[in-house]
């Protein structure tokens, strides 16, 4: 009976240790987060730069996975005669997080749509383009409500009008985010 009781205690302790370890790995619980920032963008093939107003909403499902929706609103190009007069994007996908305490490295994939208009008077109107984005980033949670972030997006797709233009681009975002 005494032996059985000792074995029982050992099992209970093991279960509790496992539970505590799991809680430590999980860290502070975040349900959702959001940010709004400015984001410089480089169109790879056209060798042009522009700026976006970048908004993101992240909803977490557990500690490893978050669903991310991103809006990129074009603020204008630095080029004197840009290929596109405007190029806005809407993305929705998933991020996978490797989180340790307040540090969070993540990578993700997001299908989406872009609304592009050519900088050409003979080609009026917007065209909707399916796009695919890959992203990666790092966050540090500085308090229960705020975090700093660095994030990069690679967006791919093609615009088909009078000429075929690749819309593949690299962009970078950084700033202060909010945990909701």
């Amino acid at each position, binding site marked *: 009976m005494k032996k059985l009781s000792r074995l029982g205690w050992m099992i209970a302790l093991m*279960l*509790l240790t496992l539970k505590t370890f799991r809680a430590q790995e999980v860290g502070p619980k975040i349900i959702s987060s959001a940010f709004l920032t400015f984001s410089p963008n480089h169109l790879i093939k056209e060798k042009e730069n522009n700026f976006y107003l970048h908004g993101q909403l992240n909803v977490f499902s557990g500690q490893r996975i978050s669903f991310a929706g991103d809006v990129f609103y074009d603020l204008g190009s630095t080029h004197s005669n840009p290929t596109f007069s405007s190029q806005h994007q809407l993305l929705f996908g*998933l991020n996978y997080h490797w989180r340790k305490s307040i540090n969070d490295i993540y990578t993700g994939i997001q*299908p989406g749509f872009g609304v592009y208009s050519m900088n050409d008077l003979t080609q009026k109107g917007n065209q*909707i383009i*399916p796009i695919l984005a890959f992203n990666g980033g790092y966050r540090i949670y500085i308090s229960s409500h705020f975090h700093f972030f660095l994030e990069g997006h690679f967006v791919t797709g*093609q615009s088909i009008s*009078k000429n*075929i233009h690749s819309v593949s681009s690299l962009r970078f975002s950084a700033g202060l985010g909010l945990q909701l």
Partner: protein
Amino acid sequence: MRFSILYFFSLLTLGIWSQESTELSKLSLGVRSTYSAFSDDGTGLGTGGQFRLRFTSRVNSDWFADYIVVDHQSIAKSEYVHIGWSVLFYPLEQTIGKFQPYILAGHCFDYNKLSLNSQPEVYGDRWGSAIQGGLGTHFFLTPQIDLSLTTQYMVHLTKELTTEYTPTGFTIVGKTDNAFEGHLLTTLSINYRLKKK
């Protein structure tokens, strides 16, 4: 007495765990990106969404809608809208690590609009239907969330649109024969399986 305390603690710990493992529903929601290749048109990219309805442990179904834009030989833009369904059959009931391969086949309604790049007002469009079949695999990030990669060939059961060079320039015409043309579609999807209430 000591034994009963131990029993109580064990039950409490296991109880907390069992609360975390909620049963999953038959329905999942997802977004997808599709690469279209090996068609008469050329290559292109598409974005869409889907929901899945799981009938049994071996049989699932995809209900999807995609918008795909394809470069038609640098002459025209070919836009496809696919709305359809596929049945997924799992040859293995269990996962292989985090993977679960499947065979799929289904049907869809498709709309195609082909417009000239130089004159977008010159276009042709058609409604049709198609059948598709292929292979794929789920990769489970968690029991609730998976990434799925599918490669399938879609055969259009309709006469295709194409460009034709005339003395006045290019124009859009319907092909006279039905050669059962189609395209190879490679789809990457992100799926979230809902929990049972």
